[in-house]
């Protein structure tokens, strides 16, 4: 398993910017929901975006995904404006049950992404098996989503997103609806997946500790209107560990630093 260290990431700065958010502003009617948000996402990074409810995190993610067009500013993916969703930007939604097809099995749901990419039927079985293995669902290939727990359903959605072989994986509070233990397990799983795949992850959460635990870099959004409150690098060693990393001095220092920003709102 590769280790993503600060050095690797610094190396990555020489690699290109894969997603560029430029002066994005979103106004609904007379309400300004997002104000002048700008940041660049470097290829290979794991970025956490954290903020309280209502700060526009989901709006920002939808703009980055191409699902909505910002009122002002733009989002560029590989030097092209994102107006519509792009096949190489995959999205994992928080409401996994509603994002899966209840009438298809787990394999069938993953196959949907392969069908969209026009991958020949003959290759489906192999690819699906590999993906199921990656997310730990090898025994559930023929189950319907209804018969799976929340954590397992979310893994199916992640597997489907990975089936797109995306450059960027956008995750909208993916573990928000899960219990604490499942959440921790999936946090480590997603880190494992990210470290073994050439993907960039943008992870949205309202949980500060989750944001610090997962990311190379944290962007804190304040609300009313949504805007960047802080943008810092996380210099914690990888691989992360649920016990030791969370007790690390540097972890606590970042937590202290950002706590005020979040609770002040």
């Amino acid at each position, binding site marked *: 398993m590769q280790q993503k260290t600060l050095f690797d990431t610094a190396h990555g700065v020489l690699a290109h910017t894969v997603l560029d958010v430029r002066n994005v502003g979103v106004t609904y009617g007379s309400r300004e929901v997002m104000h002048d948000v700008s940041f660049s996402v470097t290829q290979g990074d794991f970025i956490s975006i954290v903020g309280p409810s209502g700060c526009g995190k989901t709006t920002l993610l939808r703009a980055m995904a191409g699902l909505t067009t910002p009122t002002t500013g733009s989002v560029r993916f590989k030097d092209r404006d994102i107006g519509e969703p792009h096949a190489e930007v995959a999205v994992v939604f928080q409401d996994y049950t509603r994002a899966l097809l209840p*009438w298809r099995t787990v394999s069938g749901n993953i196959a949907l992404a392969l069908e969209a990419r026009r991958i020949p039927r003959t290759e489906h079985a192999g690819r699906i098996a590999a993906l199921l293995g990656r997310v730990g669902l090898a025994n559930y290939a023929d189950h319907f989503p209804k018969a799976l727990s929340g954590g397992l359903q979310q893994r199916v959605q992640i597997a489907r997103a990975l089936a797109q072989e995306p450059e960027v994986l956008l995750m909208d509070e993916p573990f928000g609806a899960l219990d604490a233990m499942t959440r921790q397990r999936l946090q480590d799983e997603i880190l494992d997946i990210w470290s073994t795949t050439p993907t960039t992850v943008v992870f949205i959460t309202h949980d500060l500790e989750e944001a610090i635990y997962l990311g190379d870099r944290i962007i804190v959004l304040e609300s009313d209107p949504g805007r960047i409150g802080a943008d810092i690098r996380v210099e914690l060693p990888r691989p992360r560990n649920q016990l030791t990393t969370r007790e690390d001095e540097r972890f606590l220092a970042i937590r202290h630093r950002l706590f005020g920003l979040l609770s002040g709102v």
Partner: protein
Amino acid sequence: MGAHVKVLPGLAFIIVLVGLTELACDAHLISPAIVPAPHDVWSALVVGIGSGDLWAPIRATIAHLLLGWCAACIAGVALGALVGLTAFGRTYVAPTLEFLRPLPASAVAPVGLLLIGRNDVMIVAVIVFGAIWPVLLGSVHGFAAVEPRLRDVIRTLQLTPTHALRSIAIPSALPDIIAGARVSIAIALILAVVAEILASTGGLGDWLNLAERSYRAPDLYAGVLLVGLLGVATNAGLARLEAYLLRWKETPAWP
């Protein structure tokens, strides 16, 4: 054994009822012109089918029914998709459809007679125009109610419109479509009978009408039994189809 025992009282009741009717007819307690003796009905049935007199009407009605119902379902789903999946359809077309929903379907029959005349085309046309409503409205509802999150998924996965229709819209709307189709076939049977009565060109409806006019009660009741049988058979058939197509719903939920 347990399940069979449960059927006994019901079966016994029916046998007793038939027996009582037979006795009442023999004792001339009821007029055989209105309620014929059951054994007469049975022989009318057997003779009619054996001689072939009853076969032609049965075949004709089944043909009208299946042709009309299938056409109604195909048109209903297609139009339902157009109306349910487009904002234009939902705003401007759906309200008119809702207004027409309570219109009795049999009112279409005289209009069909007026416009087309007394022939098989009229019968099938009446069935189509009357039976399309439940499956059309069911489709509109089903297509309009596709999970909004799946619309996001369609876009992020970049599914083509045809692919999205095939793999997401139709499976999602299928329960409502099938529910509509089941009501449709019941209405199709009713309209087949009504149209056949009006057209007088054959079919079980015509058979019933002629039997009534010539006071042939046993033949009339035999025809009624066959219509009832047709209704039961089509309903049971569709119930089976529904169970098969929607078997994913039977999965027990976690845990």
